[in-house]
Structures are given as C-alpha cells and as structure tokens.
C-alpha cells in the first residue's frame, strides 16, 4: 500500500490554503528536489476561465471553511496514498478574490510510475471537487448587467468522484 519513502515530505507541508499566488516552477522544484527515485511528475493547474455557462466572468471569490478544508484535503491525500504508490504530494488552493486567468488550484504528485502519478492526481482533484469545503462566487456580466452569484455544484463532479469507489 502507500509507499511513503524517506523523500516524502511531511503531511503538514503537503497542503496550503492561501490568498497569495504561487509559482508552478517553485512547487515542482520542491517536489523534485533531492527526489531521484521518482521519475514521473504530474501536475494539475486550475485557472479562472473567462466564461461559465455562457456568461462572461469578471472575478471569482473563493470562500472556504478554515480547519475543515485542511482536514478534508489531508484525508483525500491519505486515501490516494493507500491506493497508489506515490512519492510526494502538494495541494495548493487559493481563496479570496481572483481574476480571469489566475491560478486557483495546484495538485502535484510524484511517483516511480507515471500511471500512479496520473491516477492519484486526478483522484485528488475529483475528491477535492466534492469533499473539500470551498465555494465559488462569480461576478458575471449577463445581458449587459453585472451580477454576483454562487456557483451551483455539478452533478458530473459527483458522478466522477463516485467512479473511484
């Protein structure tokens, strides 16, 4: 089961909820630094799109539930480690007000084998989408009017997460 070798960073460093932006290059460098056993690195980056359901998005505000957010993500990462042989993991999720094109979420996974890195990364994203307490509020321009609204959860996300169980 989960092979936590000596190069595995501690769980506390695996998760960061932050308002600040992050550097993809720095995060990947940290995943790779001194880690010469894992040949595969898979990253996922989620960014603010300029449209959603046909509306023009101007800004996105992310709210979360401090404490539960970290706990739920730690649990998801642990589940991934139980399923796949992965090395290092990093999850960053930004909160607060974000603009079009901004990075929202980063998931990085290293492994000896690419299949494990791909699967664990997608699993973490799929579970994050339905289990981690984040909520998005969009400011959109609809029929010439600016309006704010909370995003609705997608059934497709629930369905996708269930495929892993």
């Amino acid at each position, binding site marked *: 089961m989960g092979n936590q070798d000596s190069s595995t960073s501690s769980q506390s460093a695996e998760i960061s909820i932050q308002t600040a932006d992050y550097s993809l290059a720095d995060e990947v460098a940290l995943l790779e630094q001194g880690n010469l056993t894992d040949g595969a690195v898979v990253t996922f980056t989620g960014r603010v799109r300029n449209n959603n359901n046909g509306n023009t998005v101007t800004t996105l505000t992310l*709210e979360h539930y401090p404490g539960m957010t970290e706990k739920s993500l730690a649990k998801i990462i642990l589940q991934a480690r139980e399923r796949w042989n992965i090395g290092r993991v990093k999850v960053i*999720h930004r909160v607060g007000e974000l603009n079009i094109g901004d990075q929202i979420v980063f998931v990085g996974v290293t492994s000896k084998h690419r299949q494990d890195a791909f699967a664990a990364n997608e699993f973490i994203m799929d579970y994050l989408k339905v289990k*981690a307490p984040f909520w998005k509020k969009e400011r959109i321009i609809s029929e010439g009017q600016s309006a704010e609204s909370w995003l609705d959860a997608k059934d497709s996300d629930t369905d996708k997460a269930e495929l892993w169980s």
Partner: protein
Amino acid sequence: MIKIVFFAALREQLDCAEMSLASEGVKNINDIKLKLSDNSEQWQQVFSNASLLSAVNHDMVDGEHPVKPGDEVAFFPPVTGG
C-alpha cells in the same frame, strides 16, 4: 452549548455566520435542523433543502450523526472548489 457555523450561500440566506445553540434535547444533526427551522419561514426553507451538507468537528456527516456539547457543527451548500 453547540457552536454552529454557516458558509457561502447559506450564510448569506440566513444572514448569519456563527451562532450557539443550547444542547438540551439535541442528539443529532437532524435535531439541530428541526430546532433551527423554528426560527422563521426563511430558516425553515433553508433547512428543508435536501442538498444541504453538514459537518461535525470538520468531518462531513449525515443527519443521523450524533452531536454533543462542545461540538462544532457546520451547515453549507454543496462545495464548488477546485
């Protein structure tokens, strides 16, 4: 006492982020929902929404989950992060 917190659309609909509830007669999440529904028609409507999610001490739970004094209980809409 039980600490109760609300998030996102729910917090806005109730105009309430955090409150305390006496723990007498409250055995589980469903009991809290019933009790809070008495507040007003608005609250009743919110808590009759089947998609509402709940957590106890930062773990997602269902309506049957027990609640005891000192617990932190959270109610929120389906999550939309990522």
